């Protein structure tokens, strides 16, 4: 660090950190208990003590690009031991939300996703997109949105109501959009993160070598899947299992979607599949795990009044639970032959999937990408290896 450093506090940033769940920030008196209490902070430049003072001083540039805010898994051990009730865990969570906002473009979408007042608009958006698109196609004679769907061999098929062509016409561009937004964000994030690490002496590496970085990523992924870091926490240890259930069910459902996509477009085999089909079994297990995992996470957050839960936390949790519940109910009502109900629920399910994909780079779910990249960078940086 330079001998002289002119602190230029960004007051607006301080206020935002506090408004986003880090209200207690200014109680911190820098005793550094948190850095020791944290089971995953490295010896070299541990967190979150330095983040607390940087946030207090409004040093936005030091924080939002820092890999350290992502290494934190919000287990809350620091907040429990904090002698001042400054809740470093909540401040770190607030900083992560702001980092997602910082690296997401366009800003207007990011702001809308994180604004409770914009929720009705966001809910209306996919419904409008689907119905308008469906009606336009109808006018052109393409009947992909059919309000009096026929049955296939006497059974209900959601695709008869809402053609897979229509679904994919929306979701494929949407997925490309999400990837593009992430790519733009990550490009800046990785560059900033490296600059920060060099400035703070957290790494010996001068540049980012792509091969080394990717091999670090490969090393980190099994750790993420096994929730190694999560399990080191003592305060919030019970969160690891439900979080793992949610993560694995998303992976399961991604596999299911992929297989569906290939069999449909390559082999022309249409759903619904038999309940005995291995893919269907995977889908059902994942769906159930998603519901249980999300419900447990919601319950745990509700039972923790001393941990701040913001709109962004709730938006994601209820969205995940909603996805699981509507997905399973759409299937059950279809099997129960309740035509109207099942089409309605299927429609809602599609709206939620729209939310998941379209707002992925802007919502809390973006942690999936940012945390993975930050952990890979940390692994690459060689910081953990050099212990005192």
């Amino acid at each position, binding site marked *: 660090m330079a001998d002289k450093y002119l602190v230029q506090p960004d007051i607006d940033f301080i206020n935002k950190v506090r408004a986003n769940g880090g209200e207690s920030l200014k109680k911190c008196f820098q005793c*550094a208990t948190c850095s020791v209490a944290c089971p995953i902070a490295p010896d070299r430049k541990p967190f979150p003590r330095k983040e607390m003072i940087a946030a207090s001083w409004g040093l936005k540039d030091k924080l939002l690009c820092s890999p350290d805010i992502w290494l934190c898994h919000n287990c809350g051990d620091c907040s429990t031991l904090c002698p001042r009730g400054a809740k470093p865990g909540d401040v770190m969570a607030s900083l992560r939300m702001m980092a997602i906002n910082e690296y997401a473009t366009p800003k207007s979408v990011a702001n809308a996703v994180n604004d409770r007042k914009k929720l009705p608009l966001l809910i209306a958006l996919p419904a409008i997109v689907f119905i308008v698109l469906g009606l336009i196609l109808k006018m052109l004679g393409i009947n992909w949105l059919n309000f009096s769907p026929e049955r296939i061999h006497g059974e209900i098929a959601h695709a008869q109501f809402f053609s897979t062509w229509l679904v994919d016409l929306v979701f494929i561009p949407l997925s490309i959009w999400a990837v593009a937004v992430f790519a733009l964000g990550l490009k800046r994030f990785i560059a900033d993160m490296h600059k920060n690490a060099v400035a703070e002496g957290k790494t010996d590496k001068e540049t980012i070598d792509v091969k080394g970085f990717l091999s670090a990523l490969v090393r980190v992924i099994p750790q993420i899947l096994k929730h190694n870091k999560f399990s080191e926490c003592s305060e919030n240890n019970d969160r690891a299992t439900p979080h793992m259930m949610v993560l694995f069910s998303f992976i399961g459902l991604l596999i299911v979607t992929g297989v569906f996509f290939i069999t449909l477009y390559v082999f022309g085999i249409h759903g619904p599949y038999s309940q005995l089909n291995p893919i269907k079994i995977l889908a059902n297990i994942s769906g159930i795990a998603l519901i249980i995992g999300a419900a447990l996470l919601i319950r745990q957050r509700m039972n923790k009044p001393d941990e701040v839960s913001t709109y962004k936390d709730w938006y994601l949790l209820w969205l995940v639970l909603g996805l699981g519940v509507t997905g399973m109910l759409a299937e059950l009502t279809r099997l129960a032959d309740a035509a109207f109900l099942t089409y309605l629920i299927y429609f809602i399910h599609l709206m939620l999937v729209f939310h998941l994909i379209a707002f992925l780079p802007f919502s809390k779910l973006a942690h999936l990408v940012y945390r993975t990249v930050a952990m890979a960078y940390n692994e690459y940086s060689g910081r953990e290896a050099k212990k005192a």
Partner: protein
Amino acid sequence: MSEAQGAPFSGSIMVVGGGISGLTTALEAAEVGYEVFIVEKNPYLGGRVAQLKQYFPKLCPPTCGLEINFRRIKDNPRIKFFTLADVEKVSGSPGNYNVSIKLNPRYVNENCTCCGACAEACQTEISNEFNFGMDKTRGAFLPHEMAFPSRYVISPQILGTEDAKRCKEACGYDAVDLDMQPKTLDLNVGAIVWATGWEPYDASKIDNLGFGQYPNIITNMMLERLAAANGPTKGQILRPSDSQAPKSVAFVQCAGSRDENHLPYCSYICCMASLKHATYIREQYPDAKVYIFYIDMRAPGYRYEKFYEKIKTDENVEFIKGKVAAVEDAGSGQVTVVAEDAVNGEKIHQTVDMVVLATGMQPTAANAKLPAADMNYTDDGFIINDLDKGGMFATGCANRPADVMMSNQNATGIALKAIQTMMKR
């Protein structure tokens, strides 16, 4: 001294607690002509100060100051003191209080010459609370070498045993009286001063600092007893697990203080106490290393600052800005303390032979409710003085965390407040 106008002797003052604050209030009031009763729960006067090896910053032994005060008490017919006594009930209003005091039996009368024959005869050993349980005394014991009143005590634990009989038989002065009964005494006083003092915060409540799990993690008051010549090791600072001289000692400041999970306030004395303790260790062991882990070193005032500056020049004393938040077993009795050095942002794992927790002070009233109803307390158990209302006052550490000097200043002022209550009557 000439008698003041407005007739002194119109009332007497009760001082609850015979520590340094209580003694000061009592003496100041008595020496201007008021009758004073001191009520002390221990079998001796002197309180916490009697347990210290030295005062900071002058590093002189407190027995010296206490001796002078005990001399003044002996010479002053207006002071009556009761040891092994508890205040049971208080009623009345400023200028006119009725107080019931329970006098617990000592089982040794004034014939005692401190010959020690009873202790020799007694076979039972009991935990020595004066030394925080670090050693044992016989069931008949002198609380400590400088105890005032200088008289043995027979523990209720041996009452009714063969040992008690042996003590009685051993006594050549007919001083052992096993038939003593508790007595209740009713006194009418004009003012009451609560000088009930403090207790070291229970370090075993601080889960992450390992007290009670590792024998070589001790508290600052325990170190004070280890260093004192009349302590369990005769003044040798030895680590408890194997009685070896420690080659390195870590001090953990704010152990429980300035922590809303424990004591939310600063206990005021612990920084100075640890600096003083560093001198104890460095004097005994010229090669020993001392590490002081702190949030902020608080050495208020010119004299304390000077003391701090002096300790800082010792190259074997290292100051680390960062609170210890974890301890780990390092094998063979050693303990590793973990902290983040907040100056350079690196985590430190310091392995030492002994760890001293600088635990803070908790007012006695926080754990044992006082029998006086109409007093106001802070959330932490300190008594809030209502100087306008008068009548009852708190002084010393019953009122706020304080060192000896501040306690004495405050106790002198409170003596005047107590006198004013009676002048108003």
